[in-house]
């Protein structure tokens, strides 16, 4: 059989963002308010 020299054959790895990151995003979303005036949108963060 052919010998394979590569150490890492497949670097594809399933990963998931940490629950803290997801939690941060959900809180960010809750705190973000966007108001539109004269065609320009203004962001405000209620944190």
């Amino acid at each position, binding site marked *: 059989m052919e010998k394979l020299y*590569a150490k890492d054959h*497949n*670097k*594809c*790895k*399933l*990963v*998931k*963002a*940490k629950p803290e*990151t*997801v939690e*941060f*995003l*959900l809180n*960010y*979303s*809750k705190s*973000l*308010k*966007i108001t*539109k005036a004269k*065609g*320009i*949108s*203004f*962001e405000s963060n209620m944190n």
Partner: protein
Amino acid sequence: MEHQVEDSLLIKRYIDGDERALAALIGRHNQRISSFIYSKVNDREVTEDIFQDTFMKVIRTLKRGAYSEEGKFLPWVMRISHNLIIDYFRKNRRLPMFEGADTFNIFSVIGDEKLNIEKQIIKDQIDSDLTLLIEELPNEQKEVLLMRIYKDMSFKEISENTGVSINTALGRMRYALINLRKLIDQNNIVLTN
């Protein structure tokens, strides 16, 4: 296909104010997007950062009402993360690793200079955004900026045409750029291709 339909419903619910819909969207695509980012950057911490930045952009775009629903939520999010990955490598001035294949694909490092349709659309959008922003500038700054950038005039020619000294023209250009940057920051506009 089933997911696409559900995605669009979740997006609608989220835009209507249901925060749980966002949790569902993130939960559904978390692994796919994280794995995609990780396959490019090969670093867990960087993956977290890019994932976070990606969804912050998604959240802002959805809340601004700037997302057009075409049943392509995941490809859209993937494109945002792809752009952020490119930004990351640009900042770090190193090329991404070539993984998973023994053959080196030359087209991953070279390409033709011509913009593809998508990039052309983005460029047109940037140009039109920029035109609107320039309109917000005070007249004297706008005048100098238009002459310099769009008419490619020298500051000497600008000073002759506007009847001010070269230094004043230079100062107006400087303030025009400062104010443009402020407007871009304030309105959170992304001017990248």
